[in-house]
């Protein structure tokens, strides 16, 4: 949801695109002895399978690779599985549920890393149709974390014959898993000589597994890799390659969130490679290609005609919103203390536009004309092991620039440097930035200092220290700070408290994590709905579930708890639907059609929702309505919540967010927006104007905190009720049955048991049990008078 119409003026100069015959990136050329690297591979297991095409969006089977036993097998995708879970993240969850136990942790033998396509993954006629959905039990949250990425892996995996791959067990030595769709063979091979870091290994394996020495052959290979940062932190990400034949570079997109790269390297997987021999515009076997083309052409035309006047995604990618966030006091600055900064002007998109080498098409999958994957070519690395070398760096995207603002880093070249190493080492930019911002704030207060940080001077904006911290993680530095800080904010908070450093309340409420996952880069203090969008989530505070800031705060479209709850029902369900089918969310609302001006609910972008229904109809060969799309997603959304409960989370307690997400924790924050907060104290009837004038800053802050905590609990009540959950946030068996999970008896029994335990513990009541109990005033009421309302269903 973009907010008000155009808030930035694009002042971009025309530039010529001529790319015929390739493009000189100026990158460092690497010379590797591929024959020697390949010769060092030893085949540990080989599985030959029957090659057959995709049928109406599904390959019809999944692949299971056990690295402990070196067993490879395939499993059928049944009609039931398709009906209940649709694909993508739905398949990830189903396969994980079958494979893990409630006590499974990220490094347990039975934990799996699952990567899945979806029925629309691999379509080429619509923007954003190549997403891979990966999930695992996360080292950060101890529950399932899912993350999506572009690149060629998921479509190629499906065209090779598999809707998903499960990687279970642990190898004894570094291995590569090769899916050779050209030959119909899957192999586990030792991979002792390849590099670990993504920029290098992606290039090596792309060359090694291409059928011949041509760009066309290299473009038919996709590599999944992580890096040395993944090995030594809980912030590991996965990089998915997509070979760019113009730049002649294996570019990378990231499964950023939740430590998937950490699990990948814990299993000693160096790379996952897929190779196809052919594909075309009908490889996904659509029932009605022309229906899909019609929708695709409508969207492409919007990109051509409207994007230059809306978001400029084709020119600067998601970074276009840095200036918008800055203007609306939503850009996280210095660990979310402030929402804007005069220095943030240095990160506005035009500064990156100057550095981007525009060689359209820049989409991370074929046919994406939104093409937001921007590149700085020939970037000379400033620090670390690759200092002086030149690379193509993808990004920065908004989250990267926003993350740098959060660390007080306002120099575009350092943003690119940091972005490069995050990807290269396989580290999630969002978790790293939010984590570092927290450590920097603790450093400012003296809770951390140079000695406690192993010599690092973590003052705001110190690019060299930020990079040195990352290099030390990647080197496996054993200093106490590096080890604990690299495990994420949640564990670092516990470490600080165990050390007795700092006021525990301050530590707990400054570190921006929920469920163990670091917040993404939006300020949500002034938007209650977005606080829910971050906290009342399945995997943790990531904006892919809900981004309601403009609807709530700027456009004021959802004033009541019931309105907010409706938005927090619909949008998380809708936004996670993209993950079920293998799509990117951005083309949905980062360009809006002309019809949106007259739409009844413009935030939903109804014309585009209909496009997606058309894509499903055109692919599956049966009529699919927008309503059915939402129903598909609601099923999977609730299944994920039920899995969280099964694994001991997924309750109101887990949805609690630190106070920094809700309001000013420190006096300096209060004072920086004093007029706003003072006014609210009076408007909400918390104190008279005269009383406010006499109060100390700390008193006013505490009064406001009491109010905002109370609001969050009431919001939770309204949202749980709308979602059909108990007051403690448990999806009820009745709800799960209505969604079609009647056959999951053990799961339903578990939910019933949990609800019974909550009953005995007095948790099945509205009004909040984790923070201070919310008190409903005389003009307010809980969502229903009957706390156990679901029993009447």
């Amino acid at each position, binding site marked *: 949801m973009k907010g008000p119409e155009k808030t930035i003026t694009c002042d971009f100069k025309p530039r010529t695109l*001529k790319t*015929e015959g390739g493009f000189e990136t100026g990158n460092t050329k690497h010379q590797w002895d591929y024959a020697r690297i390949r010769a060092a591979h030893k085949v540990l297991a080989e599985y030959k399978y029957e090659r057959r095409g995709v049928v109406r969006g599904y390959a019809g089977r999944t692949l299971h690779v056990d690295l402990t036993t070196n067993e490879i097998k395939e499993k059928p995708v049944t009609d039931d599985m398709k009906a209940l879970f649709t694909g993508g993240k739905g398949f990830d969850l189903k396969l994980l549920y079958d494979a893990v136990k409630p006590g499974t942790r990220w490094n347990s033998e039975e934990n799996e890393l699952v990567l899945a396509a979806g029925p629309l993954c691999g379509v080429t006629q619509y923007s954003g149709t190549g997403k891979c959905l990966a999930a695992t039990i996360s080292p950060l949250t101890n529950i399932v974390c899912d993350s999506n990425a572009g690149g060629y892996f998921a479509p190629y995996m499906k065209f090779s014959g598999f809707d998903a791959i499960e990687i279970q067990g642990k190898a004894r030595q570094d291995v590569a898993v090769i899916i050779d769709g050209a030959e119909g063979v899957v192999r586990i091979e030792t991979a002792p000589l390849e590099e670990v870091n993504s920029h290098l290994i992606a290039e090596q394996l792309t060359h090694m597994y291409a059928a011949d020495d041509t760009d066309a052959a290299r473009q038919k290979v996709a590599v999944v890799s992580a890096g040395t940062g993944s090995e030594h932190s809980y912030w590991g990400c996965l990089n998915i390659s997509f070979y760019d034949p113009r730049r002649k570079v294996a570019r990378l997109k990231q499964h950023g969130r939740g430590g998937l790269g950490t699990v990948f390297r814990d299993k000693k997987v160096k790379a996952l490679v897929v190779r196809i021999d052919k594909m075309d515009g009908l490889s996904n076997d659509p029932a009605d290609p*022309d229906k899909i083309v019609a929708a695709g*052409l409508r969207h492409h035309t919007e990109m051509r005609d409207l994007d230059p006047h809306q978001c400029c995604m084709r020119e600067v990618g998601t970074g276009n919103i840095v200036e918008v966030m800055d203007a609306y006091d939503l850009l996280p600055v210095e660990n979310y203390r402030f929402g804007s900064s005069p220095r943030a002007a240095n990160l506005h998109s035009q500064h990156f536009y100057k550095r981007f080498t525009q060689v359209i098409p820049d989409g991370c999958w074929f046919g994406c*004309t939104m093409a937001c994957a921007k590149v700085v070519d020939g970037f000379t690395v400033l620090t670390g092991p690759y200092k002086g070398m030149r690379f193509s760096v993808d990004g920065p995207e908004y989250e990267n620039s926003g993350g740098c603002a959060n660390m007080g880093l306002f120099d575009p070249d350092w943003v690119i440097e940091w972005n490069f190493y995050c990807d290269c080492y396989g580290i999630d930019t969002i978790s790293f930035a939010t984590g570092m911002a927290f450590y920097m704030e603790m450093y400012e207060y003296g809770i951390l200092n140079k000695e406690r940080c192993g010599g690092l001077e973590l003052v705001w904006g110190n690019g060299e220290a930020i990079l040195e911290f990352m290099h030390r993680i990647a080197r496996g530095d054993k200093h106490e700070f590096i080890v604990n800080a690299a495990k994420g904010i949640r564990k670092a908070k516990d470490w600080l408290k165990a050390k007795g450093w700092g006021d525990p309340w301050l530590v707990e409420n400054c570190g921006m994590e929920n469920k163990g996952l670091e917040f993404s880069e939006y300020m949500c203090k002034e938007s209650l709905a977005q606080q829910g969008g971050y906290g009342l989530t399945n995997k943790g505070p990531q904006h892919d579930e809900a981004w309601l800031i403009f609807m709530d705060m700027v456009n004021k479209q959802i004033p009541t708890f019931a309105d907010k709850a409706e938005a927090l029902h619909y949008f998380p369900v809708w936004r996670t639907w993209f993950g079920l089918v293998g799509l990117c969310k951005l083309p949905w609302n980062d360009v809006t059609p002309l019809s949106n001006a007259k739409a009844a609910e413009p935030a939903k972008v109804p014309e585009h929702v209909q496009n997606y229904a058309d894509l499903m109809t055109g692919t599956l060969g049966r009529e699919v309505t927008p309503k059915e799309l939402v129903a598909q997603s609601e099923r999977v959304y609730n299944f994920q919540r039920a899995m969280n409960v099964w694994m001991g989370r997924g309750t109101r307690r887990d949805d609690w967010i630190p106070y920094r997400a809700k309001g000013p924790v420190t006096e300096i924050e209060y004072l920086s927006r004093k007029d706003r907060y003072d006014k609210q104290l009076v408007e909400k009837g918390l104190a008279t104007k005269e009383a406010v004038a006499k109060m100390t800053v700390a008193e006013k802050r505490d009064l406001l905190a009491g109010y905002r905590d109370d609001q969050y609990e009431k919001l939770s009540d309204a949202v749980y009720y709308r979602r059909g959950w108990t007051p403690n946030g448990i999806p009820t068996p009745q709800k799960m049955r209505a969604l079609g999970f009647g056959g999951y008896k053990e799961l339903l029994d578990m939910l019933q048991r949990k609800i019974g335990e909550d009953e005995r513990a007095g948790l099945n009541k509205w009004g909040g049990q984790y923070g201070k109990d919310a008190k409903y005033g005389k003009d307010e009421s809980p969502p229903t008078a009957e706390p156990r309302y679901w029993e009447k269903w």
Partner: protein
Amino acid sequence: MKTVKVIVFHPELCEGDLACERACSRVQYFKSDEGGEKSALRIAKGKDGKFTCTVCNHCGLCVDLCPVLALKRLKSGVVALNRGACVGCQACVAFCPTGVMRKAPGHIVPFKCISCGKCVEACPKKALELVEMNIDDLEREVYARHGRVCP
């Protein structure tokens, strides 16, 4: 100076016979006699009774838009599509500044004029002509007109 032969239309000679379209659809990969939606060149009659023709001028913008390098400018200067490499994404169709990269119903791979001259031969009124044009001029015009980054 690099040149390319481009179809030039003389509306005053055209009588709307559409032999050109039928000739074109015969040389396209789906080998049809239908013309119309299966012709790379299209003749239309305006409200004023005058005919117009839309056909590729080989400006080459589509070459930049293809994600798999399936579109190339040949030595002759003609911009041509390698059907075997095409992944059917339709980006070239949507972004063509003159709307002459076509998609025929039932066929996922687009098609375009390759200045073969069959339409010129087919026209009984000699309303079509192949004329050598300077490629730099064509490119300069289209890139200026569709400035910024994306066309």
